[in-house]
């Protein structure tokens, strides 16, 4: 018993090191960490977990390096959340999809809009949250024509007095957080090559980590590190091509044989096809300071029709672990080799320490687009479990011995033939929308879709004067008829604990608190609070537009807890409203319009920040 007890405390401290340490308050948080005994990652729902004190800020979209999106604040709890009311609103003046998280540093809230990517600083110390400053980077208009799926931006990040964000036209910009003055501006890609940027950077050890979007345009994916102070590119890791470009060297030790070999980023493709092979980086990055590793995933391969690119198409749909200072790859695991269903591998990875099989494992939890929740050993890339969190028939499971995803050949698309009921559909079981993890309940909170698709017939299309042919993709509700779900999952048992069926896809992020309240939004504009242990609905508020943003919570200058979220429909799922797509054209929006035909009757566009308090 005694031995176990010691081990548990040890585990807790490690988790604390990962979960805490907001970048904006480095010294303060390390002080508080040193004096705290933490029991994190014990048995779920234990209820006796001591948590590190929360500094009340929310300095990056994922809240912490471990990407838990968990706040230790407790003022708002399951009993009083019913009294939550809107205390302030702010119009962003932009009509496209708002996927970003507002962030809070001290007495200021910062947010970045979709294209044209305007940054606002709002003064939390004054009534009505007046604008302290705003910054308009004036991105090129033409970049809107390059972005595939609405002109979204997933947020900005704060570190050491500066804000960092990406523009749709491929600039990474650092602003002085106090004044809004530009400190540096680095052009890292080119819309003329099909590259855009939509992801939120992560700042680790003086490096601003960023990635590109644009697989639809045949670009080559990369992750770059910019020097935090100068904006200079410190390193670039490509996701296709020779090992030297991928930053694979002698220290690269993938767990599975299939991921071992020389220059697999070349040899797993037809000649030269890797040069336009996709594998972009438009999702989330996590960091473990103890292991000194960053973790992130790459998007699916291009071109879309798989018969043109026989082979594994490395390193697309892959999780990488890299050293932040050099970019050197330490391990990689290809989640979906030779993807055929548009299952980008860019989702969030949540870093926690869990007792598994009698041992404490440093794990990375990843609710993947292909429909499995991967629990992996983050020290070496071993898959410990991969359980479906919804209905899957496109694949038949993951072989834990080989790491192989077992495809179902009956569901593989082929031009000229009809394939029906492919589940999950192209947007996956879950797309970009990040989940949250509560060390108090030990549960993962996952906003996601329940969609299937048919791929049928051949449709003519036309680009740059050239006719081409493709599949008619038609997306529709999965089993049960609900298009979305918000579910709680126990990563230790690999089982669902509870689930809320939502009519529309749940395309918002989520956030959970030490008050045992979890928050998420719906595409028709309801912002909801539920009991983190039972899923019981506790409160809801109808915002002006559909919610696809990421909720956050913070302690205001008055010492009270607030909750904030951006409302503003759009994104791939909401493009029918934000992009004004034609509801009669079922293949519009990559087939998504067929699944959201009713959305224009349920919500309207318009970006608005909502802040709630007791």
């Amino acid at each position: 018993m005694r031995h176990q007890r010691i081990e548990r405390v040890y585990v807790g401290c490690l988790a604390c090191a990962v979960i805490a340490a907001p970048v904006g308050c480095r010294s303060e948080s390390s002080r508080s960490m040193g004096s705290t005994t933490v029991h994190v990652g014990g048995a779920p729902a234990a209820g006796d977990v001591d948590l590190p004190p929360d500094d009340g800020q929310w300095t990056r979209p994922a809240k912490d390096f471990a990407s838990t999106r968990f706040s230790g604040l407790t003022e708002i709890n399951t009993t009083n959340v019913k009294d939550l009311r809107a205390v302030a609103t702010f119009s962003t003046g932009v009509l496209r999809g708002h996927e970003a998280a507002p962030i809070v540093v001290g007495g200021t809230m910062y947010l970045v809009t979709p294209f044209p990517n305007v940054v606002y600083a709002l003064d939390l110390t004054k009534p009505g949250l007046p604008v302290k400053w705003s910054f308009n980077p004036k991105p090129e208009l033409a970049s809107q024509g390059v972005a595939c799926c609405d002109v979204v931006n997933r947020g900005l990040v704060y570190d050491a007095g500066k804000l960092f964000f990406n523009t749709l036209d491929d600039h990474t910009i650092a602003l002085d957080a106090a004044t809004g003055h530009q400190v540096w501006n680095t052009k890292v890609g080119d819309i003329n090559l099909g590259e855009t940027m939509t992801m939120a950077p992560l700042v680790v050890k003086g490096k601003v980590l960023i990635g590109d979007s644009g697989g639809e345009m045949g670009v080559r994916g990369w992750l770059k590190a910019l020097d935090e102070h100068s904006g200079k590119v410190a390193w670039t890791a490509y996701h296709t091509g020779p090992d030297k470009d991928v930053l694979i060297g002698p220290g690269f030790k993938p767990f599975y044989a299939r991921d071992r070999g020389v220059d697999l980023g070349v040899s797993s493709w037809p000649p030269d096809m890797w040069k336009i092979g996709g594998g972009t980086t438009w999702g989330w990055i996590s960091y473990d300071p103890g292991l000194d590793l960053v973790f992130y995933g790459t998007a699916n391969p291009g071109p879309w029709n798989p018969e043109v690119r026989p082979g594994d198409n490395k390193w697309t749909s892959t999780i990488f672990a890299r050293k932040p200072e050099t970019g050197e790859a330490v391990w990689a695991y290809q989640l979906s080799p030779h993807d055929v269903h548009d299952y980008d591998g860019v989702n969030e990875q949540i870093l926690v320490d869990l007792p598994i099989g009698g041992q404490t494992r440093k794990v990375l939890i990843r609710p993947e687009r292909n429909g499995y929740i991967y629990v992996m050993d983050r020290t070496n890339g071993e898959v410990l479990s991969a359980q479906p969190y919804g209905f899957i028939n496109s694949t038949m499971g993951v072989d834990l011995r080989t790491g192989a995803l077992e495809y179902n050949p009956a569901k593989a698309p082929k031009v000229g033939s009809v394939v029906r009921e492919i589940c999950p559909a192209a947007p996956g079981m879950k797309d970009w929308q990040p989940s949250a993890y509560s060390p108090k309940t030990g549960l993962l909170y996952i906003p996601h879709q329940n969609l299937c698709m048919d791929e049928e017939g051949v449709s003519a299309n036309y680009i740059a004067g050239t006719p081409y042919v493709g599949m008619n993709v038609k997306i529709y509700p999965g089993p049960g008829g609900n298009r979305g779900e918000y579910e709680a999952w126990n990563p230790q048992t690999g089982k669902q604990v509870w689930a809320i069926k939502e009519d529309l896809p749940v395309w918002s992020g989520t956030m959970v608190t030490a008050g045992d309240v979890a928050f998420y939004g719906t595409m028709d504009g309801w912002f909801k609070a539920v009991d983190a242990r039972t899923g019981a609905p506790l409160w809801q508020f109808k915002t002006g537009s559909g919610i696809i943003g990421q909720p956050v919570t913070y302690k205001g200058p008055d010492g009270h807890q607030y909750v904030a979220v951006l409302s503003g429909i759009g994104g791939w799922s909401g493009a029918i409203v934000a992009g004004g797509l034609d509801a009669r054209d079922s293949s519009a929006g990559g087939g998504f319009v067929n699944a959201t035909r009713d959305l224009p009757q349920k919500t309207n566009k318009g970006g608005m920040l909502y802040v709630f308090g007791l």
Partner: protein
Amino acid sequence: MSGSRNAWTRTHELSAWRETALLLVPLAVLLLGTGSTLSLRAGAPAVQPALRVCADPNNLPFSNRAGQGFENRIAELIGRDLGRRVEYTWWAQRRGFVRNTLGAGACDLVVGTAAGMEMLATTRPYYKSTYVFVSRHDRHLEIRSLDDARLRHLRIGVQLIGDDFANTPPAHALANRGMSKNLVGFTVYGDYRTANPPARIVDAVAKGDVDIAVVWGPLAGYFARREGVPLDVVPVAPRVDLPYLPFVFDIAMGVRRGDSVVRAQLDELIARRRPSIDSLLDAYGVPRVGANAPTEP
């Protein structure tokens, strides 16, 4: 781009277009090229609404900002016929093109698009072209069919679309024949900083970077004449690769869905001005198949 207009303005303008056109068609021949002075003639409205065309500013032989493409020339032909000056909204013709131009109300006509495209209302086709094999004449390949066994030993350039549920027919057809390893991919989009980015695939044939390429006819026909070495341009057989991969496509004009009056007017114009359109296409070396094929491609 010019700002989008509200629905009322657009409707008004289109009906004005119709009325003006009916009034002025008989005069058009007399007044060729003097569209801006039309308003001074008796009975004409004070201001002629422009013919607002949505076009790619950098994609010869189709269109460019300097007005050198055959779609520019066809737009001018329509403008003259209707007595209206041509005004452009420039936007790269790729995903989002229709949405951001025609769909946003910034312009009213797309001169070239695949017939039957769902996102717009297309007119009757005004030409039918084909994918072609392009190779250096000095190679004497004379390959005509996708089933030619020699293809298995060649580096074959094809254009690729990226990860967007679609691709060019040769990419599908050659991969279906087990020749993925022979393919050299060029993105249709190319590098937009350079002139006419889709033309790089024809440049690659001329330079010998690939042995042969399978390219959409109008692009190949135009650039094959402009490379430093003689190139052979040969229509691909079969025209339809079974079960269903077409290599020939009908090309039409596109207007907003619902603009049926305008579409009918364009249909009438296409029928009436067929000889002029055909000779323009001939001048640009557009290979054509079917009824209006030039006698010598």
